[in-house]
């Protein structure tokens, strides 16, 4: 069975990953650099975050359903 792998980021745009060699096997809850919560998939549709490094850093909304990854992003659109 293939090992589950994925990438994610925190609100401060610190990227992280799990399941790759030298990385944790499971997704972790908080960013090791700033302590903010990590996001590994869309909170609405559970789609994974984009695995392209450039897209991962710039993405604020889910490519699949358009929901924001972080609550603050929603506030920004309301303004």
């Amino acid at each position: 069975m293939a090992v589950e792998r994925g990438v994610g980021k925190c609100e401060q745009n610190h990227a992280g990953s799990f399941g790759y060699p030298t990385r944790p096997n499971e997704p972790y809850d908080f960013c090791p650099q700033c302590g903010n919560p990590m996001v590994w998939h869309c909170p609405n549709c559970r789609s994974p975050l984009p695995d392209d490094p450039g897209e991962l850093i710039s993405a604020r909304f889910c490519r699949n359903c358009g929901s924001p990854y972080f609550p603050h992003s929603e506030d920004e659109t309301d303004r």
Partner: protein
Amino acid sequence: MIRIEVSYRAILFIALMLVSLWALTKLWPIILLILTAFIFHTALLPYVEWLVRKGLPRTLSVLLILLAIMGVLAGLSALVVPAMVDEFTNLKSDLPEDAKDLENLLDDFGIHVELEQRARDIDWDHLISGSAAVDYGQRALTILLGIITVVVLTAYLLVDTPRLSRFVYQFVPPGREPEMEHFLTAMNRVVGGYIRGQVVTSACIFVYTLIVLLAVGVPNAVAFAVLAAFVDIIPLIGATIAVVFPTVAAFRESPTQAIIVLALLMAYQQFEDRLLTPRVYGQTLNLPPLVVLVAVLVGGQLLGIVGVLLAMPAAAVARVGFDYWMERRGPAAPPTGPIEELLAPDEPAMEKEAVRGRRTRRRKV
């Protein structure tokens, strides 16, 4: 007066580069063995992973695969080497007569070359025995040691692949692992696919050439089939060599046989180029012919026959690297120059003004 200032760091960098280049030239034979081992590692890794997924221990899987390959090679050698020795003996006795035939043929075309006398002048005793034998023995020993080193290195690499993977990934920043994974997968696909495809095409040409030459009754059929399998690896000229030598040998028997051999072998070349190779390799290599030609010339100039053999996988790896670099560059940036450059020269100035106005408004928003 021009004053040039060089920092200590620059001097250190240049010195380090020079030492690296010197080390590279000194260690080149070892680097070549390691590169070859990496190529075989890439080609064999999918089979090892398959056995590991079936539940076999990794070391046992590697041993099984290497033993299977060596068994096949030993079997082929047992089949081919005695036949080649016999054929070499025939060649030695028949050479003056064959040279005379060729000389007569060339005479008909107005080319006068003393081939028969040259064939009689060859000192076979000197070539086969004495100091020459010692020289051949040394060369054979060097090649044998090289093969053993490559086999051992390949075995270590296959057994240690997970550790090797961890070593590589520790240099990858968080979040960039998928990118590295795509890159490594592309490399594996290209290099491994090339080697596996080459084994298939060489096996096919060996069987076909053997059947054709045996059916037509050309002497030294096994030797020519082995030759065809080996030269099939050489890009561009390999196909010609695989056709020319058996055709010349068939011509010694009769012109009709030569025509049949030529037609059948050329038909196979067409089949290989148009049907077999695209199906076996697919989009694995997908290199333009000019790139192949340049790669072969550069490889041949740098490393001789080894360079010619490594030219295709090296060019394919370079292509993967180039594609990776292009992808990382991303799409070209939109032009930021004056608006006039975006419009055709004959476009009315009013329209240019309108475009400029639209741009300004968009910026304000």
